[in-house]
């Protein structure tokens, strides 16, 4: 196997790569390539992942626009100033889909661990098993000290009925921890405190 594990080349586990072209071969069956491991973003993520425009999933002024704000804190309760939060949503709920909507938002945390994205609230989301999930954002948090991103969701407190029937929130998350995934209403949108570790630790998911 040693010769199948040269650096730099994607290598299938059970088949000879197309070494003549230094290219991985498309496999037919049974063989898989080992996945590239994750590494931390480190403290200087802003160089590439810190474009302030990316916090605007929809332009400010969009009908139905909301600010989803949050904080990221560590196990001591201290703010995490070198994290980046990414949100993803496919749908826009009751709002018309604005031109250029891609559904992706990204915001690095500031010195106080705060982040914010401007978006529209999503509608119900198709879930596994032909079920329907309550409106939510899919969320990744990257930070110095996180060797892999942590994956979570942001639900909305004013969707109590949908939240109570959500196949993940209501069935896979223990009741005491559910509030860590539910953003509360604010004057211009919603707010959620995320805690990476410790008491009231945010629920993180394995994908």
């Amino acid at each position, binding site marked *: 196997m040693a010769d199948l594990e*040269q650096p730099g080349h994607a290598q299938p586990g059970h088949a000879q790569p197309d070494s003549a072209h230094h290219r991985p071969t498309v496999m037919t069956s049974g063989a*898989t390539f080992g996945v590239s491991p994750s590494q931390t973003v480190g403290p200087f993520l802003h160089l590439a992942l810190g474009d302030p425009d990316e916090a605007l999933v929809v332009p400010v002024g969009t009908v139905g626009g909301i600010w989803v704000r949050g904080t990221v804190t560590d196990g001591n309760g201290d703010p995490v100033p070198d994290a980046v939060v990414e949100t993803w949503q*496919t749908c826009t709920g009751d709002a018309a889909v604005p031109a250029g909507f891609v559904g992706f938002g990204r915001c690095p945390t500031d010195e106080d661990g705060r982040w914010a994205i401007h978006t529209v609230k999503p509608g119900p989301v*198709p879930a596994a098993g032909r079920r329907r999930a309550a409106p939510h954002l899919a969320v990744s948090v990257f930070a110095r000290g996180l060797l892999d991103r942590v994956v979570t969701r942001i639900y909305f407190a004013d969707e109590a009925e949908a939240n109570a029937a959500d196949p993940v929130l209501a069935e896979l998350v223990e009741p005491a921890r559910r509030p860590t995934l539910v953003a509360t209403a604010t004057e211009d949108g919603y707010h959620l405190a995320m805690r990476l570790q410790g008491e009231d630790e945010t*629920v993180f998911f394995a994908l």
Partner: protein
Amino acid sequence: MTTPEPAGLPAGYAPPAPGTNAPLASPAYRSTGGRAPSRPLVPLPPGLHELTGPLFGADRVRPGDADLTRGPSGEAVGQRIVVAGRVVDADGRPVPDTLIEIWQANASGRYRHDRDRWPGALDPNFTGAGRTVTDAEGCYRFLTVRPGAYPWGNHTNAWRPAHIHVSLFGRSFSQRLVTQMYFPDDPLFFQDPILGAIPDPAARRRLVSAYDHDLTEAEWALGFRWDIVLRGPLAVPFEQPGEDDHG
């Protein structure tokens, strides 16, 4: 808004083999101490949001974004290198038209960042950030300078091996990957707790690029090849009519 009946969704993506990703709590990398979640991750049956993702393409990239060597007043200082390779999924299928973002220290090992304060020289012609999209075969190519190693406070006389930070979106939220690319035969690997946190040595080696003389350009730049493998779809489709396939 009327919501359509939920459609059957694909089964999702196969998790990386055990040992591929570092445990979030890896004490040798001290920053994990206050930040790694202490509770077990909750397994998530993927819904639509985990099975889709932003399909950023060429619209996110301006001409010249893949060339980090050109500064406002001339060439960046350092050994000019080509970093190129192919993005595939775990089944070997190319991942085309996907955004790759990179950031790195300059040839002195210094980042152009307020919080990087060690006395390595800054280079006015090197910002250290670039982006590109993969082509139809999943191939990508950057021109940059070889980053220097840099010291950090993790342990006594700690130095990060030279590396380039790399961010990829793939085709879905589940394929999102942020990692680091290393250079072959770096003598600093032995004491690096970030690369070293990856349990499987073969997985660790997948983050190390290979010198590739075919990529080296005569009288211009040294070539390093680095292929990237994102998670692939689970083998068993969600709906196999009349079948209960556990293969």
